[in-house]
């Protein structure tokens, strides 16, 4: 259940950003979660809905963007089909994951500022 500690990190970060800009409210946060980020989006949403009570994010909508894991050959660019061995047959080198596929990022905060 590390989703709760991740939500805690998220809310703390949002509160810090809001304080720095003297925001009176935070309307929306956009978070992207890679398929291989090790976070279950549904659990993360549930954890957010539970944990945000009493915080600055109490009324803040969270938009989750899912980033699929896309592997390809860094040399010839050939995509590796899902479930296949993560290497390029032709080039004989390891495949590379497209950016975002294993990351969990706070993208944007929409806040109300004076």
């Amino acid at each position: 259940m590390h989703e709760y500690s991740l939500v805690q990190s998220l809310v703390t970060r949002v509160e810090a950003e809001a304080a720095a800009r003297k925001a009176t409210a935070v309307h929306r946060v956009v978070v992207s979660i890679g398929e291989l980020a090790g976070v279950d989006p549904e659990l993360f949403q549930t954890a957010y809905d539970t944990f945000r009570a009493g915080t600055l994010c109490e009324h803040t909508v969270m938009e989750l963007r899912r980033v699929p894991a896309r592997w390809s050959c860094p040399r010839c660019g050939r995509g590796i089909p899902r479930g296949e061995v993560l290497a390029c047959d032709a080039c004989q080198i390891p495949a590379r994951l497209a950016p975002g596929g294993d990351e969990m990022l706070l993208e944007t905060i929409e806040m109300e500022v004076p």
Partner: protein
Amino acid sequence: MCTTCGCGDTSIVPVDVHEKILAGNDRVAAHNRAHFAGAGVLALNLMGSPGAGKTALLEATARAAKGRWRLGAVSGDLATDNDARRLEAAGIPSRAITTGQGCHLDAELVHNALHGVPWQATDVFFIENVGNLVCPAIYDLGQAANVVALSVTEGEDKPLKYPVMFKAADLVVLTKCDLVPHLDVKVETILDNLKRVMPAPRVIQVSARTGAGIDEWVAWLASRREKLPRTAGPGHAHDHTHVHPHEHTHAHPHRHADGTVHGHSHGHSHAHDHLHAPGAEDEHGHGEADHAHGTDGGHEHEHEP
């Protein structure tokens, strides 16, 4: 203020952050990593299922590395310090990190635990994570490499079920291989599945019980030690207090009355109260030249490359 007419109403602005949600953890991990590198310590994050054989692997490592390397460990556990006590019994100075309901270690937990073990006086330092194939993978602790212990008894498809963990692994140690003849498991299938979740899989097959494969594992450790940066870590002033009071509780064979820079020429092979063991071995990333301290007991130092 409203920018259209200056009426004093608030306005809604989007603020682009584009930052990792675990950026705070990563900053502490970078701090840990700088410390390990600065002291020339190979730090490894050892992960795997409960019962995968993580502790037994370390016990076997202690037997194989005896007289060669000084080992140390912190061991994450939900409720007990059993693993840390097993490691102590095997000759690895250890400290338990009891996480309560926490399913993983984070960089801050490791940083705090390091205050209680003489990690600077080790050559290889293991961070034995909580037995779990999910959460530990996403928390950087400041390790030089991730090692995942996977036992042959866990089923051939474990890698496919936990791709995030195996993708994070720099090395998979396939444990309990002495049991293969007794199981309906094909090692080839496990290896093939690893290739589908790791772009450049590195696997060592071992048995902690028979000692098979342990030499290959020790050779891997040696190769990783050779890759360690030889210079001290990034210069930074210490703003924390864990190392500086310099209390020697053991008989000290040298005296220093003039407050000049000096090195300890004796080898520290035992744990003692101060974490900083200046010049404990010549493999330390910072020598006595960085390390001026006077006769008043307290001292300040800065790491400079």
